[in-house]
Each structure stands twice: as C-alpha cells, then as structure tokens.
C-alpha cells in the first residue's frame, strides 16, 4: 500500500462533509479528474450518510470509521464501517429503491449510487454486528504528473 489513513468520527450529519473533504485531500496527490473525484465523493457521502442515519438509534452517539488506501496502481480503496444495528438482509437492502425509511424521503438509491460510481462494492453486515462497506475504484492514468 502506497499510502493509507483512518478516520473516526461521531455520527453527526456535518461529519458527512468532513469525511468527503478528508478523502478528497487524501487522494488529491494522485491528481484524479474532477469527474473521478466527484464520483468518489458521492459514494463516500452515501456510505457515511447511511452510517449516520441508519446505524444507530435516534439520539444514540455512535462512532463511524473510514479507512482509505491508495496503491501504486492508482487503486483507491475506501472502507466505511460502524458498530450499529446492522442490516438483516443485505441483498434486499442493495436493491434499487429499497429503503427501510420510506416516510423520511429516503430515496433508497444509496447502494445503487455507490455501485455505479465505484468499480466494486462489498457490503458485510449482520443484525447488531454493524456494517462494513468496502468500495474500490481504479483511477485513470495520470497525464499531469
């Protein structure tokens, strides 16, 4: 692994933006295209907002971890995990439009967005065991550097 970092933060909604910027700053030295960075940021947002919204009970303080690694082949690996309630049926949760909170204007498109913006998505979860979302994206080769 050429570089790696870990973040840990509270399940507060303003930390979604914090996580997005932190990941951006971490991969900026690879000089991705604006398109690639926007895709990664959007995927990070979805993963982190899921952990903020779904992982912990209302008013429960919970921690969210984000790990990011970049390797010499310009692969970016991002792991977002929580120790919250977990997902009972992962395949159902990953279906487009599925949401367990239809009353709160959730789109149910979070996992679909992560899947289409990244090259790989893996979701490991179990009731009361928390959730671990692993995403991978290979950046285009760099011309500028």
């Amino acid at each position, binding site marked *: 692994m050429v570089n790696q970092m870990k973040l840990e933060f509270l399940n507060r909604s303003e930390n979604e*933006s914090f996580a*997005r*910027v932190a990941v*951006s*700053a971490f991969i*900026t030295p690879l*000089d*991705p*295209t*604006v*398109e690639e*960075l*926007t*895709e990664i940021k959007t995927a990070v947002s979805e993963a982190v907002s899921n952990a903020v919204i779904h992982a912990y009970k209302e008013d429960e303080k919970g921690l969210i971890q984000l790990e990011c690694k970049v390797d010499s082949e310009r692969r970016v690996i991002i792991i977002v995990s929580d120790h919250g309630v977990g997902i009972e049926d992962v395949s159902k949760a990953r279906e487009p439009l599925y949401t367990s909170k239809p009353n709160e204007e959730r789109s149910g*498109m979070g996992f*679909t*967005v992560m899947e*289409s913006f990244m090259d790989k998505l893996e979701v490991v979860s179990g009731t009361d065991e928390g959730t671990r979302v692993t995403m991978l994206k290979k950046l285009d080769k*760099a*011309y*500028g550097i």
Partner: protein
Amino acid sequence: IGEIRRYLRDNNSIRVSRSLRDTAYKALQSKEKLSRELQREPTITEIAKDLDLPREEIVLALDSIQDPISLFEPVFH
C-alpha cells in the same frame, strides 16, 4: 444516474489540481473584496456564499495553492 455521469464526463474531464487552483484564485479575490466591504476578515461561509460554491470546495482549494508555511517563513529568515 446515467445522466449525471454523462454530465460529469462532458464537463469535468479536467484534473482536480487545475480545478482547485482556479477555485483558490477566485477565493482569494473574493476574500480581498469581502475584507474591504466588511472591514474585517471574511469567514469561509461568507466566501462560499459570495462565490456560490460549497464550503468544502473553498477549504480544499485554499490548501492547494500555497503551503501556509511558505507564506510565513520569510518573516523569520
């Protein structure tokens, strides 16, 4: 999503380094302008509003152009 992707591809095949430098330049200009208008240092939010850009863009961009150290060091040498 297909539409978003197409939009991104058509508009954003430029590198992040260049885009950040452009934003940073605008942010510094906005900072100067707001300092004059407000008679004090503007906040990040005020600059973001002035440029109609998200705050996070400003934060990232402000770091991309200059190392704050290099701004500071001449004072000591």
